[in-house]
């Protein structure tokens, strides 16, 4: 796989151009290339030569040889591809295929060869691509030049204006005003500078303090996703291997016989390095999950465009024999919320005693580990005023001169403590990250999606409101919307709680152990 050099040699043995891709001394490459013409025999129907140390793969082009010097282990199929590619390029860059022509185009050829082979490895490119790469016509450069030009023009304008102002002020000065004004201003500026020094040192200290928390945040997330990925991949791998048994029995036979012959083959390969504990499997007999999902659209000038909260209560039972139970719950008494039970649930029992049990008490609840368990209860809330919204965002883009200042602030309702808040503000396509003037919490710029992400780990009573300010080149303010927000909370609108489990059979009356999870999460929370 390693191409040592790509060269063009004349039939008489003169080295016209050679480009080496691995480190080798000059005497070595010259020796190899000098030996080549002597090794080329006439009347052979193949175009490679092997010596003790290297292999030459060549192609005659009129009075020249185009050749690759490779290692002997090199993949001939790939090398021939490379050679073919190069042979197409040579006539593209050299007018005449003789010594003079190649000599004139030597450097262009070297540039072209570089595009095809990088560090000895073949690049998959086409002739057109190579030409494009060598022409180096860049759209972005043109854009950049235009921007530069306009900037220059702008500056000229500014210059003119300033010049006018100065002229004016000069005229005013000549009118005879004198004083220590100038010295005053100089003092002020000194004061300013010392202040800014202080603030910098303070800021850095603060940054240091917030360091660990940031680290935690960034660490936690990838772990979760990786664990998920892995569990998913292992789940999907299992059925796939059985599918292989049916479909590609031939390959499997190969493996089987390899095993029989003593090869150790591990079929379901899981990455071993960096293993981390996967999500612990549920060990408690009962798991009850209360989950509320928010779909909210806020208007950018305040007010709610739409509000929708959907809640579910689901029950997961580990063992079949524990299926005969009832659930005692307590609702928060929010009048805006309407509960709906599953059709199989005894509705009267729920309405009267807030107990969830099956209509036919001789049947158990379905069991199983998969999924979220069985949904028992659903509820919705659609009407809400602004005070009910957990988090409001206020975004003020303002254009001043050549820059757009964007200041964002959030205000959280005291009803909820929010965790893992991420506010994503879309930006125009930028080359550099925006200049952030001020920020409560942390921020990150994702250049691929051009989004600035403002993250606050926890919003509680200490920071019910916060703000961030950044500067970008001038753009239309509508670019910054829709802002999307993600967060989670452990308190819910409904305030639904599970008070206990009532076993219907045996058990001696002791309440079984159960786990309750309650969370409020955002599904689609946007400022439009």
């Amino acid at each position: 796989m390693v191409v040592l050099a790509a060269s063009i040699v004349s039939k008489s043995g003169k080295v016209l151009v050679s480009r080496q891709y691995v480190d080798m001394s000059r005497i070595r490459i010259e020796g190899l290339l000098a030996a080549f013409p002597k090794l080329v025999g006439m009347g052979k129907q193949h175009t490679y030569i092997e010596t003790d140390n290297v292999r030459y793969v060549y192609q005659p082009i009129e009075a020249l040889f185009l050749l690759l010097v490779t290692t002997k282990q090199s993949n001939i199929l790939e090398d021939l591809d490379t050679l073919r590619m190069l042979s197409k390029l040579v006539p593209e860059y050299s007018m005449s295929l003789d010594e003079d022509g190649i000599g004139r185009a030597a450097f262009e050829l070297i540039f072209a060869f570089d595009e095809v082979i990088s560090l000895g490895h073949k690049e998959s490119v086409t002739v057109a691509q190579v030409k494009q790469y060598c022409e180096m016509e860049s759209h972005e450069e043109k854009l950049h030049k235009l921007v530069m030009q306009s900037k220059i023009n702008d500056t000229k304008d500014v210059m003119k204006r300033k010049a006018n102002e100065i002229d004016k002020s000069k005229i005013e000065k000549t009118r005879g005003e004198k004083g220590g004004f100038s010295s005053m201003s100089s003092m002020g500026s000194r004061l300013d500078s010392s202040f800014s020094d202080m603030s910098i040192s303070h800021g850095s200290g603060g940054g240091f303090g917030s360091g660990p928390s940031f680290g935690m945040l960034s660490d936690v997330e990838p772990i979760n996703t990786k664990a998920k990925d892995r569990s998913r991949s292992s789940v999907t791998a299992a059925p796939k291997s059985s599918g292989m048994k049916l479909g590609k029995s031939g390959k499997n036979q190969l493996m089987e016989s390899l095993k029989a012959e003593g090869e150790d083959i591990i079929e379901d390969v899981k990455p071993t390095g960096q293993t981390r504990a996967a999500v612990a499997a549920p060990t408690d007999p009962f798991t009850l999950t209360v989950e509320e999902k928010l779909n909210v659209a806020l208007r950018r000038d305040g007010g709610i465009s739409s509000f929708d909260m959907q809640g579910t209560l689901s029950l997961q039972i580990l063992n079949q024999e524990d299926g005969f139970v009832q659930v005692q719950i307590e609702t928060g008494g929010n009048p805006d919320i309407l509960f709906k039970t599953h059709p199989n649930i005894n509705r009267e029992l729920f309405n009267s005693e807030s107990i969830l049990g099956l209509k036919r008490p001789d049947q158990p609840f379905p069991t199983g580990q998969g999924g979220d368990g069985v949904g028992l209860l659903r509820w919705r809330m659609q009407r809400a005023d602004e005070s009910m919204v957990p988090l409001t965002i206020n975004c003020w883009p303002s254009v001043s001169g050549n820059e757009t200042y964007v200041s964002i602030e959030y205000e959280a309702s005291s009803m909820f403590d929010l965790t893992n808040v991420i506010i994503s503000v879309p930006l125009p396509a930028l080359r550099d990250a925006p200049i952030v003037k001020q920020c409560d919490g942390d921020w990150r710029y994702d250049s691929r999606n051009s989004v600035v992400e403002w993250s606050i780990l926890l919003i509680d009573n200490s920071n019910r409101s916060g703000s961030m300010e950044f500067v970008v080149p001038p753009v239309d303010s509508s670019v910054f919307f829709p802002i999307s927000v993600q967060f989670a909370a452990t308190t819910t609108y409904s305030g639904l709680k599970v008070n206990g489990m009532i076993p219907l059979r045996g058990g001696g009356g002791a309440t079984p152990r159960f786990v309750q999870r309650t969370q409020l999460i955002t599904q689609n929370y946007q400022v439009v």
Partner: protein
Amino acid sequence: MDKSSTLLVHYDKGTPAVAKEIKEALEGNDVEAKVDAMKKAVMLLLNGETIPQLFITIIRYVLPSEDHTIQKLLLLYLELIEKTDSKGKVLPEMILICQNLRNNLMHPNEYIRGVTLRFLCRLKETEIVEPLTPSVLQNLEHRHPFVRRNAILAVMSIYKLPNGEQLFVDAPEMIEKALSTEQDPSAKRNAFLMLFTCAEERAVYYLLSNVDKVSDWNESLQMVVLELIRSVCKTKPAEKGKYIKIIISLLSATSSAVIYECAGTLVSLSSAPTAIRAAANTYCQLLLSQSDNNVKLILLDRLSELKSSHRDIMVELIIDVLRVLSSPNLDIRRKTLDIALDLITHHNINEVVQMLKKEVVKTQSGELEKNGEYRQMLIQAIHACAVKFPEVASTVVHLLMDFLGDSNVASALDVISFVREIIETNPKLRVSIITRLLDTFYQIRAGKVCPCALWIIGEYCLSLSEVENGISTIKQCLGELPFYSVSEESAPTETSKKIQPTSSAMVSSRKPVILADGTYATQSAASETTFSTPTVVQGALTSGNLRALLLTGDFFLGAVVACTLTKLVLRLEEVQSSKTEVNKTVTQALLIMVSMLQLGQSPASPHPIDNDSYERIVLCIKLLCHRNDEMKKIWLESCRQSFVKMISEKQLREMEELKAKTQTTHAQPDDLIDFFHLKSRKGMSQLELEDQVQDDLKRATGEFTKDENDANKLNRILQLTGFSDPVYAEAYVTVHHYDIALEVTVINRTKETLQNLCLELATMGDLKLVERPQNYSLAPATSMQIKANIKVSSTETGVIFGNIVYETSNVMERNVVVLNDIHIDIMDYISPAVCSDVAFRTMWAEFEWENKVAVNTKIENEREFLDHIIKSTNMKCLTGPSELEGECGFLAANLYAKSVFGEDALVNVSIEKQTDGALSGYIRIRSKTQGIALSLGDKITLKQKGSS
């Protein structure tokens, strides 16, 4: 190691570029002129002319240029320029280019960024790279894949530099992240490559977490995966099992390059029969699907490697291998047959021979150029089969005998020698072969084949009917006697006129040739023509082939006819009871012989009969006239016996060769034993490949040097100046393949500092100095080492001469010390090699340069002399030891060697022991180039004197 070179451009010394012109052009504003000047500057740099003042000009005037081509050329210039001082510290002015490089890395043009990143890949100086690292990292997230892919490579190269890990502590992590989101196949490949070389465990992790997707990956990425697997398995053989599945899934990839690589990997990782079989099968499929000859040949190489290590598995695939014979390329066919012949067993011999027969028949129908040669190859293959497995001989011999009349003399010759061997070794086939031969004898057209066929008839016609049949066949082929009639003689003037000029030309073109047994003989041009161009008899079916050949003047054939007839008659005497019949035959035979003699002396023959044939025919006549038992015994039995002896010796030799071959594959005494019932250890065997790939690269780049014996090194020291010279110098000469390295130790013997000391070397012959000499200053009584490299481009004795020039402080003139010449020995470049007899003879005929050295030696024994020549010329003796046996006072042998540049050197030794005990004769050297012939001749002249 020497400074590595990254590019070469041919530079015409005829038009020297002046530094001043370049400078002016660089300072100007004309872009075209600037480009040209940059190119010239780079070329000058390549030729070792570092014009230091140019560098500042370039920094001042070229760095700010906006033109892309200029920027690229600038990068080339920077790539070539010496960036460190003699102590390895980075020159201070290099800091100036850093800013420019950083600007380039942040350039709005993505291609400028890309090429700059690529330039960074070739940069070795950590100090220059260091300030650029943040910019490199930013490019990892550039929008354009072209930039990203080069950025990844740049990160990899920088990370690999000494101390590179400190520049990029978290490089592997970043690349891993980039890899997970990367879409561009090339950038993805590069990222994976980076992980593979810099953080293997991360690459493994990525691979294993994407096991299911491997088969969908891009071709180039799959290649790196295979490379990774090989490297991981090398270091941790225990984890091999994890990867076999991946390899097997890649075996069904779409790209043939990947499949090829896969098979190679499989072979290197496992020696389990299934794995080998899968790999071999893959190779066979590729053989059939790929149309490129190069690919086929290399695949065949791989197969023959497999064959030597896993013959039992390859045996199963022999028919698949033989399918490749459909390719029209002779080299491929030859290789295929070579492989197939080693794989023949009792089980597949029939199939193989069937297939070969089919191919032979095919060559008859198609009218392709190389058919004759191909047929010859096939016949040789069948011959080899039949020797190994005599039972198949019966099925093929008749088919092959159809080719006796072939117009291709070589293949007909092969057939007839095949028949000769079979008829001796396989007595059961004798009768059928003889009948067949007698039936087809009249078809034989070639003057070379006839004698052999006649010999078979003479030796193996045993029964009465066969003998009679034989005699009549010969008579038939000779046609009506006498060979020329008076009517023909009536127009002798015409024919002789026609023939005369040609024959005189022939006589003049007589030249010596080497006979098959190594003797150096003068061969008449006439018989040579029969050798090279088959004399196919013109319109001769009516007159018989023997007659026609005789009429062209082939009297050697006449002698053979006479001998055959004599043998047949002698045998007839044994089997025929009727005396009259015998006598009748004897008279007929005598008549034939006499008419042949007559023809030989008549003007109708193109040239008169040679003495050898004449004597032989006369001997036959005498014998037939006075038959006795002793003579009969010699003619009928001894002749056959010597043939049997020859055959058995040949077989013995083949057996010995085979034994020598198998000896190496015997199990070692401490090898583990495989129990069939237990788990086989084959799969667990150590990886043979080990560092093969790495070594391969090292050998290719010339880094691989064997540890040499220091004592040996001391032997090769040459003293260059005298002990009393102000400067003492001695050199240690190492000859590598294509270059000679001189390590000169220079010692200042004076009490003054020598300034501007310079070692000036010049060469004669095909040698070239690589570098320009440098100036040094040498303190009193100190020594220093100067290295010089000299390039060699052909095998020839070369001479390096030179002098040391220096200045002292008080005398303002230069002193010169002339050095001893250094002779480069041709022996360092040639190595013993083997070639076939036929190839040797054709080369001998073709080569233009001959050097003839008269033997002049004190050695009195022929063998001893030959051994001495072989030893002192480093050549291989092609003439077999059995042919050199015996004390007859004559010795002839062929020697052969090949140079590292692929040139052939042929030597023929012909010596005779004089009556006074001294040896006389000639040694002839032939080669394509004058250099070899001359230098080898000098060498022999020098060395032949005695056992010094």
